[in-house]
């Protein structure tokens, strides 16, 4: 009888779905999550495949074909989104600009999330030492508006997209650290952490293997939302001339370059602007969907105390 139950069990009890897979499934089952994922997939593909998709060289000027409207508005030369005042193909530039903007948003958000997670783990685990110092620092940083410091700092270290990304990534820790430090200081008191200590696990393993997974939800949610915000911030700073430097360009610098000639070629301003909006909305929708996926309302199926 036991054997039968076991055999039946072996086929009936496969490896449970991992948390990542489960979260993705939940996010996908949500309408706005699905829209976000599809949008982001399209955006990422467009950015990755820019060299294949772009009909022409994004930097090639052709003054003879300057300020042509989009082809579907009767513009000559078959430019899908028209040309700018220097005769460059707006669609091609949009793809390449998107590429840089996405890299800035995703890389900066990721760096900032990892940095914030690390500091949050330390601040929460070593509450009375590292935690005190870091939380004071966070208070100070919260009191100072980023635009002021960011602009001042960028002015000191000089413009440039990599410098800007570093500043943004470092500045962003504070968004993560407080939330995470609070959760960590709760989680570290839980019995499973004590259990890990009694089997001899070292502190780094306890932090990464036993505590980090419990605080990962907010990190990923914040990551998604902040990636969108960072695309926007980069655009704004590029418009101030602090971000991407020519000949490189992002969606933000496209806006900056074309806004003075809005009347001559509005399409060179409006489409990059729309693209920025789509990117921001997509990341935000994803963030919302992930928030729901990490905190499903029905979580009491098995263990009300913990779930």
């Amino acid at each position, binding site marked *: *009888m*036991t054997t039968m*139950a*076991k055999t*039946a*069990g*072996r086929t*009936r*009890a*496969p*490896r*449970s779905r991992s*948390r990542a897979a489960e979260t993705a499934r939940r996010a996908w089952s949500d309408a706005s999550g699905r829209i976000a994922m599809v949008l982001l997939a399209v955006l990422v593909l467009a950015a990755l495949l820019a060299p294949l998709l772009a009909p022409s060289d994004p930097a090639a000027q052709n003054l003879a074909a300057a300020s042509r409207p989009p082809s579907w508005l009767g513009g000559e030369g078959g430019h899908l989104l028209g040309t700018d005042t220097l005769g460059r193909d707006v669609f091609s530039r949009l793809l390449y600009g998107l590429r840089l903007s996405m890299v800035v948003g995703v890389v900066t958000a990721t760096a900032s999330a990892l940095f914030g997670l690390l500091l949050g783990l330390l601040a929460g685990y070593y509450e009375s030492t590292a935690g005190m110092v870091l939380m004071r620092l966070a208070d100070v940083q919260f009191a100072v508006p980023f635009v002021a410091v960011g602009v001042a700092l960028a002015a000191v270290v000089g413009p440039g997209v990599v410098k800007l990304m570093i500043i943004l990534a470092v500045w962003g820790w504070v968004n993560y650290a407080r939330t995470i430090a609070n959760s960590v200081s709760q989680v570290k008191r*839980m*019995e*499973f952490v*004590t*259990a*890990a*200590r*009694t*089997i*001899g*696990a*070292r502190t780094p*393993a306890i932090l990464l*293997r*036993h505590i980090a*997974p*419990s605080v990962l939800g907010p990190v990923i949610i914040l990551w998604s939302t902040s990636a969108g915000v960072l695309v926007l911030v980069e655009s704004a700073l590029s418009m101030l001339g602090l971000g991407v430097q020519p000949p490189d360009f992002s969606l933000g610098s496209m806006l900056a370059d074309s806004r003075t000639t809005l009347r001559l070629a509005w399409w060179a301003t409006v489409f990059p602007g729309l693209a920025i909006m789509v990117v921001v909305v997509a990341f935000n929708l994803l963030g919302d969907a992930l928030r729901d996926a990490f905190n499903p309302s029905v979580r009491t*199926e*098995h*263990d009300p*105390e*913990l*779930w």
Partner: protein
Amino acid sequence: MSTHAPVARVNGLVKDFRIPGGRVLRAVDGVSFEVGRGETLGLVGESGSGKSTVARMLIRLDRPTAGSVEFEGADITALRGAALRRQVRRRMAMVFQSSSTSLNPYQRVGEVLAEPLRVHRVGEAGARGRAVETMMERVGLDPAFAGRYPRELSGGQRQRVGIARALMLDPSLIVADEPTASLDVSVQAQVVNLLQDLQRDLGLSYLFITHDLGLVRHLSHRVAVMYLGRLVEVGDTAQVFAEPAHPYAAMLVSMRRQAEHRILPAGEIPSPIDRPSGCVFRSRCPIAQARCERDVPPLVEIAPGRRAACHFPGELRPGGTDAPVHVPAAPPLVAPLTSQKGR
């Protein structure tokens, strides 16, 4: 049992906690006892008497304010780093009260059980996997559960995982802090039987903390009674339950007798911050004398293998006889996979 060297011994353990207001709470005050090889020492006492704190000092989670801990013949009180891992973490394990909070919710059962081996670099991955499977079978869990998360298991199954984790490194001593308190009665009996089987087969020693006097009577060879941070009586379980020497032990033991023989505690439970002078139990002791206010009664041998901390040991005797040893009626082990998911 006591002729052999004990597996663990604590001497004069004291633990002070600093509490808000700059005051100090003495949670444990001069506790000494030993755990013999293959023996179960039951540790009882009301909530807040310091049982868990003693356990945490024994397994080196809390550092004693004073006193020492010996384990397998070595003084482990001040060990750190690699020596602590080798001499304590590898050889002593803990089973926790709550099966749901003592397992990492994001670790699969297989990972939970392989971790002790991984931490101490025992075997390579394949061998660890087999060891996990063997251990799961040993504690009555289907190895197919290795891929499951703790929340997908019943309370009893999770507690088996907790026990299996404690056994992975083949320890000599297991500290179990109310390991059955969060379980249903029928599941409790299964877990208790499992612990007894394991002790018999593996020669384990247990420090078993519980509030359940019936369980202590059934399970432990010797019993230690704590009150407000102090050890008030230690002795052979059957003897203590038959003829308790300390008035507090007498009260506890009388709870297992016929209603008319029960001795109910008088007075109020003192706060651990404001401990009475002299004997800590005097505010509730029916036979307290003037001397009890003045002199702290030391824990002294009152008979071979029997120690009590009272100026008048054995003078408060509960009437009647100890209830028969209650062997928990364990329903037959449910085949692991007729999954008790819904409990």
